[in-house]
């Protein structure tokens, strides 16, 4: 009985881990489902910014542009002409949504880094914030540092 219970709990945890992923869709060549384990394959970037506690924190994650480029979004040399009318919406598990123009993410346009963070000060993000959170370097308001990210969609402004 105890063994069965343990199995059930392990299955539950496995399902939970599986479900915590980000759906990347819209105007991308390869729509994908990004899991926490997939993040390790990309170069890690650190961004510092203040949190609600008023203190500076070091966030670690992957540049959003790297993830989107991998999914086939038109960044880098392709970010010109009509592609400059593209934007992304980022959605959280509570339904909250924020938007970035694609050009805001591209290093040919700006040095400001926007990352999909998975760690704060070297530790996994808190349950209420993670496992994925957008961190916008140097942005005064924290409103677009969206927590518990579940989906990113690339679209054309119409």
């Amino acid at each position, binding site marked *: 009985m105890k063994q069965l219970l343990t199995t059930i709990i392990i299955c539950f945890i496995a399902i939970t881990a599986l479900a*915590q992923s980000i759906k990347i869709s819209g105007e991308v060549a390869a729509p994908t489902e990004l899991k926490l384990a997939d993040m390790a394959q990309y170069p890690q970037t650190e961004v510092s910014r203040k949190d609600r506690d008023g203190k500076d924190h070091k966030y670690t994650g992957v540049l959003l542009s790297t993830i989107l480029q991998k999914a086939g979004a038109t960044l880098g040399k392709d970010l010109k002409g009509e592609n400059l009318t593209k934007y992304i919406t980022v959605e959280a598990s509570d*339904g909250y949504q924020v938007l970035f123009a694609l050009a805001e993410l591209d290093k040919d346009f700006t040095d400001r880094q926007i990352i999909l963070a998975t760690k704060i000060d070297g530790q996994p993000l808190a349950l209420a914030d993670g496992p994925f959170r957008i961190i916008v370097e140097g942005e005064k308001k924290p409103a677009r540092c969206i927590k518990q990210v579940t989906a990113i969609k690339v679209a054309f402004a119409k």
Partner: protein
Amino acid sequence: MVLLLAFVGTITSWTYDPVPIGPYQFNYPTNFGNRTFIPDDNPTTKEGVYLGRMLFYETALSANNKISCGTCHQQALAFTDGKAFSTGVDGSLTSRSSMSLANMLWSRKLFWDGRSNALEGQAAIPMQNPHEMGQMMQTTVRKLSRKMPYPELFDKVFGKEEGINGVTIIKAIAQFERTLISANSKYDQYLQGKHKPTKQELQGLALFNNAPQPAKSIRGANCSRCHGGVKTYMELFHNNGLDTVGKDAGIGSLTALATDQGRFKAPTLRNIALTAPYMHDGRFKNLDEVLDHYSDHIKTSAALSDIFRGASNRKDGTQLSLKADEKKAIIAFLSMLTDDTFIHDPRFSDPHIAATISNK
């Protein structure tokens, strides 16, 4: 005999208002914004709304011919029923409290757990749930096919080829529901510069909008974080600290995620003074109890939304800790959200009652 039939036919067409035809024009204030949601395959028409209203109040949609959508969504109560749980055709209670219907034109996530992504998908569920209206769609189709004036009306709205079927029934109901726009509360009038609130209402509004910052001596209840904007609805889903481990897991029962346990929709506050009891399970009898909860009784759990963590009017406090007069002020502001025009609008009322009266 032929004459008699013709006479009966005439009476039937007399009893209801004449059917208007053409595209339906939505009217709402500019500050509501145009982020509306109407599926491409169900454009809103005047005739569709007319039919949808008939169906919304049609008791033949239930297995015992006694329950319509309007039974649990009564206009006078801002389309709720004043109960914690509603009684279905089999005498059992629903698992969650009937939700207020207002400004659904802007809504994309229906139910307390947001599981339905359009009104078209939502309506079919309570209709067929054995503990609610309890009637399979094919039975509803059969009953409506035999009931005047539905066959003729469906042909008029959806064309003869479509006629009455499970899809056209819910499409019509959804069209009617999108017209339920509440935009004339005192709060709307205030935003348009046409109403001067009392001092207490203004204090309530400030508390409603402000996040508490004891270090800066700013007092707040931060309600607008989830109920903000002119519609007082932002389509957000949160665990608001009702329980440490709740009986109803909300979205958690769909996703099994630890962070989704006890997570429910932060519903519209439009007409909130009319929609007691409150929360998904109607546990709070009145707004005083609601304010007491948010002020003093937030329960911590893994899924508790970060909005509530450390949000306090006291330095290093763990609860919001509002004063008695502040709670009263917030309730005074919430009462400004009551829209008398909406709850008395004849376009949203039961057309069968009007038809019965005019027929007498």
